[in-house]
């Protein structure tokens, strides 16, 4: 064997239902497998998956781990700890007079995460169970103003008393968030010293001026408290996993995927646990970005359709779209994260007739009891049942035959629950379910692209997740994209993202810089030297972090950006800044880019320079490139002409049965161009191609669905 191929790269993603694993060798050949996620101890599922892949490769886990160069991990550990409220009891120390900030949540807590269609039910609005109850919140005298002036000095005896009281009330970790602390971090730092003094050096402490030094005390407090609430749990888990991997032979780098799509060392992740809150779905977007750069796709819509939800991300000009504030578990986290929008649409979404109308989702049967056809006790019709009845899923080969489905039960349920009440045939009813769920997903995609001034025709749509490849032909056509790609790694795409990620550090700081209203040349009001100094300081911090992770200087890529808005607006646009020194010319370019983006987003003529311009946050993202192999050229399993089977599939558009070509994915060869309707089958996934579409395969094994012109 080629010795180079003995170097392995591993990505693992612990999702809600399955733990997915991807192993790639230096030649770019991949092995994937999945094991049930074990929520009580996630590492068990990881090792089960490792054993399955090692067996596929014909070696032991120890032999395989011994060859691993890099082990990337995307984890839902932080999210689970938040949702299940089993984080560490955290004491919060805050400015006197403002202890209720985290309780009041700017009034946003009781509607967070509620889809608009459920807002009409006022009685169901409720605040989240507090991550930190009122008894664990202590106020201390101190006050700093917006310019960073100290108006009330820190009352140190009061801090001591507060720390002791919080400890007495059960606090095991600490968070400190003072008003305007990012303009004057000294008070928070002093509190840390006092906590260490009292609670010892081992105490887990988060300072808001370090975790999230941005304007907005509610989101900053929530982010800081969540960091301390999740930190100890995440740290313990990562330590446990890393040392078990090492005990079984891992000598390569172990790193964790964060929510902005970079990897961090386990140690960094443990101190910034809040950055892992969207680690799971981010993997898919990052895997897509890596693939997109290989394939030369600048703009990509990533779609991950699983059992309960449909997660969407965007890659524009090769970069994932980032959001500054993200809602997680009914709290609002102020840290840059890959912007992922989720709606309740998946294979498990329930279809029902209410008031003579057919509704699909957001209610879901999930994995348990799941669709009627799973025979696990599910009695309500789901999207997967419709797919089965329409012939898109083959009941005998679903999940490589590991799970047998009951098409008769699915058909009976659709007939009784949907078709008869609506006076339709069973197949019309099933087709209706499919059309509605596809249209909903297309509406979401349209809001995210067209709604932000982008034309979906400029994008390639990537589809992955359990149900994604079965539905992408429908929602892709509905959206109007020209090309849909189902990645070769679609069955474990998030894990692939964890494998392919670069090391990433970001730093940001809020600082309000404004131009005068009415100034026709607003850049003249901006002090470019001052802004350059702010960026330089942020960049120094990021570079030294990358150095600590062993990234050489010439492998660091620095990207600067600023949040910009018109004066008095509250919603900013993130404007990237080009390389080179930040001088007067750069300020002018920045303002030009802002107004260009603004008009692109909100329409020509929307710009309103007369109002004046504000820069609110400055951000540096530093990426340390880590080498990982390119995909191996795909070698089909059959070289002779494959005999292609056919089976009838119900076409939801024309409303009739068509003869669909059935072809195993591994048998497709480059140059094959198969017209739809077609079903491409793989042991872990099913890809459906519509009547007016074509499917082909590229050199590395990705499927391409092209709309007939």
């Amino acid at each position: 064997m080629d010795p180079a191929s003995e170097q392995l790269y591993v990505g693992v993603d612990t999702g809600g239902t399955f733990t997915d694993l991807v192993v790639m060798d230096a030649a770019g050949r991949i092995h994937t497998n999945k094991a049930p996620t074990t929520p009580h101890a996630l590492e068990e599922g990881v090792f089960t998956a490792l054993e399955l892949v090692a067996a596929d490769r014909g070696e032991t886990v120890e032999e395989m781990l011994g060859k691993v160069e890099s082990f990337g991990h995307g984890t839902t550990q932080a999210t689970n700890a938040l949702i299940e409220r089993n984080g560490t009891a955290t004491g919060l120390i805050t400015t006197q007079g403002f202890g209720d900030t985290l309780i009041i949540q700017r009034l946003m807590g009781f509607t967070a995460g509620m889809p608009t269609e459920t807002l009409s039910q006022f009685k169901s609005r409720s605040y989240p169970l507090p991550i930190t109850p009122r008894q664990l919140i202590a106020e201390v005298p101190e006050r700093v103003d917006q310019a960073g002036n100290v108006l009330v000095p820190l009352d140190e005896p009061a801090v001591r008393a507060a720390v002791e009281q919080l400890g007495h009330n059960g606090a095991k970790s600490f968070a400190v968030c003072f008003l305007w602390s990012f303009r004057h971090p000294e008070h928070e730092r002093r509190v840390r010293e006092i906590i260490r003094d009292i609670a010892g050096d081992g105490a887990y402490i988060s300072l808001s001026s370090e975790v999230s030094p941005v304007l907005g005390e509610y989101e900053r407090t929530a982010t800081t408290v969540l960091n301390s609430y999740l930190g100890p749990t995440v740290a313990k888990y990562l330590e446990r996993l890393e040392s078990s991997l090492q005990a079984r032979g891992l000598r390569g780098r172990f790193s964790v995927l964060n929510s902005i799509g970079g990897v961090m060392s386990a140690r960094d992740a443990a101190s910034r646990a809040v950055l892992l809150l969207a680690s799971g779905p981010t993997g898919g977007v990052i895997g897509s970005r890596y693939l997109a750069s290989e394939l030369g796709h600048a703009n990509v819509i990533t779609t991950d359709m699983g059992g309960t939800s449909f997660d969407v991300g965007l890659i524009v000009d090769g970069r994932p779209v980032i959001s500054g504030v993200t809602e997680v578990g009914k709290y609002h986290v102020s840290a840059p994260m890959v912007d992922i929008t989720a709606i309740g649409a998946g294979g498990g979404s329930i279809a029902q007739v209410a008031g003579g109308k057919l509704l699909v989702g957001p209610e879901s049967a999930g994995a348990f009891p799941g669709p009627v056809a799973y025979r696990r006790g599910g009695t309500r019709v789901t999207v997967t049942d419709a797919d089965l009845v329409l012939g898109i899923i083959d009941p005998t080969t679903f999940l490589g035959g590991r799970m047998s489905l009951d098409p008769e039960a699915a058909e009976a349920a659709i007939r009784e629950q949907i078709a008869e009440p609506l006076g339709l045939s069973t197949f019309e009813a099933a087709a209706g379910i499919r059309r509605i769920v596809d249209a909903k997903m297309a509406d979401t995609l349209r809001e995210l692209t067209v709604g932000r001034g982008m034309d979906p025709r400029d994008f390639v749509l990537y589809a992955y997740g359990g149900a994604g490849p079965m539905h992408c032909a429908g929602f892709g056509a509905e959206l109007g994209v020209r090309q849909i790609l189902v990645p070769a790694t679609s069955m474990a795409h998030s894990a692939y993202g964890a494998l392919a990620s670069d090391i990433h550090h970001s730093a940001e700081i809020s600082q309000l810089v404004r131009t005068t209203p009415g100034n026709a040349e607003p850049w003249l009001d901006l002090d470019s030297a001052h802004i350059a100094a702010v960026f330089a300081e942020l960049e120094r911090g990021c570079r030294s972090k990358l150095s600590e992770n062993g990234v050489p200087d010439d492998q660091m890529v620095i990207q600067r950006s600023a949040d910009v808005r018109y004066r008095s607006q509250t919603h900013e646009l993130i404007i990237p800044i080009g390389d080179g020194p930040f001088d007067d010319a750069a300020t002018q370019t920045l303002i030009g880019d802002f107004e260009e983006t603004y008009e692109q987003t909100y329409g020509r003529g929307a710009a309103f320079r007369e109002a004046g311009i504000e820069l609110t946050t400055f951000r540096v993202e530093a990426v340390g490139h880590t080498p990982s192999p390119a995909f191996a050229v795909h070698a089909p399993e059959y070289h002779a002409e494959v005999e292609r089977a056919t089976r009838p599939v119900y076409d939801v558009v024309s409303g009739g049965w068509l003869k669909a070509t059935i072809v195993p994915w591994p048998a497709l060869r480059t140059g094959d161009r198969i017209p739809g309707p077609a079903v491409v089958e793989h042991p872990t996934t099913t890809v459906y191609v519509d009547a007016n579409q074509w499917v082909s395969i590229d050199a590395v094994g990705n499927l391409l669905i092209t709309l007939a012109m």
Partner: protein
Amino acid sequence: MQTNAAGSSVEIDPITFEVVRHRLSAITEEQAITLQAVSGSPVVTDATDFNVGTYLADGSIVTMGPQVLFHSGSMASVVRNIVKDFSENPGIREGDMFVLNDPYRGALHQPDVSVVAPVFHEGVHVAWVGCCAHQLDIGGMNFGSWSIKARDIQQEAMLLPGVKLVEGGLIREDLWQMIMGMTRLPMAVGLDLKAMIAANTVAGRRLVELCDRYGVDRVLRVMEMEIDHSEEQLRDRLRTLPDGTFRAIDYLEHDGHENRLYEYHLALTKSGDELIFDFAGTSPQAPGFINATYSGLVGGVFTAVLPILGSGLRWNEGLLRPLTIRAPKGSVVNANWPAPVSSATIGSIWVVTNVSVAALSRLAVVSAESASDATAVTKGSMTALVLSGSNRDGQPYGNFFLDSTAGGGGAYHDHDGLNASGDFCVPRPAITNVESHEATGPVLYLYRALIADSGGPGRQRGGATVGLAFTPHDVDSLETMIVGHGVEVPNSVGLFGGYEGSCNRNEVLKRVDGLSPVGRVTTFAEHDGWQGERVSLGAKPGFFTLNRGDVLAYSFQGGGGFGDPIDRDPKDVAADVVDGYVSVGHAEDVYGVVVDRSGAIDASATTARRSAIRAARIGRVPAATASDEPVPGTRTLTPSLLLSDDGDVVCRCRHSFGPGFDWTARAVRRTVEPEAHGPYVRLHAELELREFVCPSCGTLLGCEVARIGAPDLTTVELR
């Protein structure tokens, strides 16, 4: 003008219906996102004081956003008035948009500016899209356009009757400059108008695309069906409820000129699948700016109907169709031109919603299916605070503070009201961060916190309110204006024995030389220790100057309680004490629960205390105990009263009040001091607080805020 009255004959399959319907909601959502992103004011971005929607060509609401609900009812009238007044001249053509803020032509009050646009498909006018957003200043005698001393509408603000601001896709520069010249904040208003134009452009374009894709007749048919469907669902729901009349009264103090008390009477009659809201008995219109026009009245009623009887339904014109709304012409809820109306939203419209919520909840609670949507009044008042002056950089500064939405929510039959709930008219509220306020203006906050004992006590507690204080910072002074109500009227009434939530409190702590208030005033309680003069402001102090060193402190109404407070589970009271929402003293006095700060309950002392409270109410040891056991031969009248098959009103303890719905005449009836209901309950000199108690078991069956000497209100009458 050619309009398409929709293809009522077009057949729509249920799948196309659902696909197109979802798309219409998505368009409305995109409209709201665009408006919020472009708007320059936290009134829009945080407080969501705006709404958006799509309408049929005749103005019927097809979709609306989950933002301030008052607007949704009024925007249909905006469209209808433009169609009525301007179809001929200047005409309604493709690429036009109209701007309107005249409350006598559909607006709620002048600061709520609507921009609506006709949508044309292949040259035919098929629909409308529109936005409405509260503007920070639209001129008139006062900054912020809350024209407290106005006596007629001409003094209050600019008045736009539906002017064609956009013609053939272009903003008319002459009209644009005219509007910019009449506002004190052209930057903010300019951004908001552009935001509304952008949102309408987006929505109009999407609607046309939808018509291209599915055919205009089909899209219009779906719009009509969607309205019909909601109407049918509401009518179905109404048919499950008993026929009867449900009443509520509320009050508003101070009309801008004098501290007079205005009365709002509502008799809601439910008959078959219809609802009649009758405001007969409501006070005549006021000489000042608190009046509502008819469009405001509709907005106020619709706001209460949507979440209570429209819970879980899709909100559109269909929910208005079963309603009839009547009010005497020339009354404070249906004023005659040119009565001033610039504070209508936070004046008469607000109180219209209060009485509508109370009456609708009295109706909803009678049926098991809708009982869970019945709610005591949520934060029954609103305070507008406007600051203006110079900013720290010398630029002009002006802002409308909406932290005052952070009052308490009304309690439900099975759960407490929300602490810091926002207003009933706002489904998804938000307040601005303190740091954002301090970054944009020369103010420094001293505290912003929940206030103990502010939620209306009840078996289920009303939500606690927030209170806050700030001082001018980096400048010598700020011009301040406060307009509100509910300082001397506890508008957040409870239901079925629940108490009222706290009243508003507006205070200035006057500066003391050499003493910064920063670090000295950090809680609501610390006002008591202030060394300087402490000025208690009424409901409408109007304009005053806040100087460096002065403190402005205000707090809002808590939510009303639900059911008798001494029936609250002692464990819930103890949890409230531990969390600090209820004080130890309040727990004992009002809830009859003897508990210490750690939450330890003294069970026998609690039993004794509760018995003593019951005995004190009726002047003797109770002879019976109420129970939740079903009583054969009766049906529900209220959660604590039953109606027997032979027409007697019966307490859950089996005590019979005899026939007739005026059972209060045969209850133990007492008037109590406002302090008995909570430390922040206050009463106007002309008001009193009444309690109605079962003479047999001592259960508190109802409370009433009433004008002294007025007869008791018969709140529920079933037919």
